[in-house]
């Protein structure tokens, strides 16, 4: 029950403190304070919208890049990760278990722009020993949301 507020906001960040207060049977101020606290403590990082860019005239290309690195004494993977995530192009960065070390997603204006980033920026970072770039062809689902709109059943006249 403790993270109820976070769970609700993760599903719909547009919910206002007043709405949340009604839903949870709490005081609005109390809810607003809790949210402010989450923001302050960097538990809530932001409130972005999920956008299907393919439906716009922006032709963006997203790639998932596997990066292998040689961990450095004292800093492990963090220092190299830091050198990577500082780039604005980097959308997400995860440290992985398994066959490679870092998973990077970047979005660029074109295939070439992404390739350029990998060769000119990523691959040359000290400690990066190899990369493999996978272009994303189609997105189906992200953060529990489907990109395709589900068909609706036909209109009904019924009484239940």
């Amino acid at each position, binding site marked *: 029950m403790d993270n109820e507020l976070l769970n609700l906001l993760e599903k*719909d960040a547009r919910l206002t403190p007043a709405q949340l207060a*009604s*839903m949870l049977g709490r005081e609005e101020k109390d809810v607003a304070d809790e949210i402010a606290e989450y923001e302050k403590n960097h538990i809530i990082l932001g409130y972005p919208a999920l956008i299907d860019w393919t439906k716009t005239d922006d032709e963006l290309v997203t790639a998932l890049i596997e990066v292998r690195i040689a961990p450095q004494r004292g800093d492990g993977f963090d220092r190299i990760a830091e050198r990577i995530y500082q780039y604005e192009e980097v959308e997400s960065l995860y440290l992985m278990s398994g066959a490679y070390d870092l998973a990077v997603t970047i979005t660029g204006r074109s295939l070439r722009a992404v390739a350029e980033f990998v060769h000119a920026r990523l691959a040359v970072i000290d400690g990066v020993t190899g990369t493999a770039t996978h272009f994303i062809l189609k997105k189906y689902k992200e953060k529990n949301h489907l990109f395709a709109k589900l068909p609706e*059943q036909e209109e009904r*006249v019924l009484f239940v």
Partner: protein
Amino acid sequence: MIDYEAALSPRVKGIAPSGIRKFFDLLENMDSGDAISLGVGEPDFVTPWHIRDAGVYALEKGFTKYTSNAGLKELRGEISKYLHRRFALDYDPMKQMIVTVGGSEGIDIAVRAVVSQGDEVIVPVPSFVCYGPIVELAGGVPVYVETKAEDEFRLTAEALRQAITPRTKLLVLPFPNNPTGAIMERHDLEAIAQVLRGTNIIVLSDEIYAELTYGSHHVSIANIPDMVERTLVVNGFSKSYAMTGWRMGYVCGPQPLIKQMVKIHQYAIMCAPTTSQYAAIEAMRAGDGDILSMRKDYDYRRRFLLDKLRGAGLSCFEPRGAFYAFPDIRSTGMTSAEFCEQFLIRQHVAAIPGTAFGAGGEGFVRMCYASSLQNLSEAMDRLERFLKEL
């Protein structure tokens, strides 16, 4: 020329058409893309995928034949375990249970098995619309007992006692209730049981919303001492698992009753749809978590709606079950029908007049909160505007 009037059964012709027909016409003719419906009483969720997938898998495997009349043994076994696990009810899957086409069929065959010409059936109202007509089709006489807002729309022992006559055959117990959201707690049921002990009255307990109670666990009247011998429990998958279109329900009760009901079921229906039965097995085995998360969502919406209704100045008793709020609109000076018509015309929000659910519904409207929070929020903003402009 055929005289259809003469051809038709007077019993069928005598059944009053649904009170909200006019309302539907209005809704159909409304060409408004921004309309919000709080009218249809069904989950807004799609059936969870693992359940749908089990239905698809059954089709792939070619399970397309009839099942036993009473339903798949495997399913009945699962239902038996489920009822024990969730509601401490114990029914023999082979002798005391029929899988039906929705809870509705369970209600129909229960009434038909018990009621004969002129028998009286006590139906608390406001309640779901099917009981009275089904009783009439069976030749019985529905005796409506009004539940009151001041009793939180529960059936009281006193009201029941007054309605009983030597011809009373059956008591319908529709709790958690559509449209009021009322529930009956153990002490309420004990009082009802006290009235029934020593009589020959059968109870038809429609528990289709049993999983949707908020703040307390559903108690079946079959849990009350001496009641299991006279109770038919109707339940189903529609509301709890968001499976309305699969048409899956079941009815459990004493073997002598069930045995006779199977006859009606086998001649009228044969068996419930096979695909749906396989999906239902999956629901029983792995669906408890789905219920939990949907109930939680309904509860958020319930509190939100109640808060907004009261904030807008309508008095509303706290619904403790199902997914409806039943606000009192008498302060507007309008009848339920006028209120709903005007609300729809002016603000494009559909709610159902309480009168559609029988006597005692005048002065109230039913709003279904199985709708997204953004929808509910917008509907309540419009309600506020609507009330201000009156």
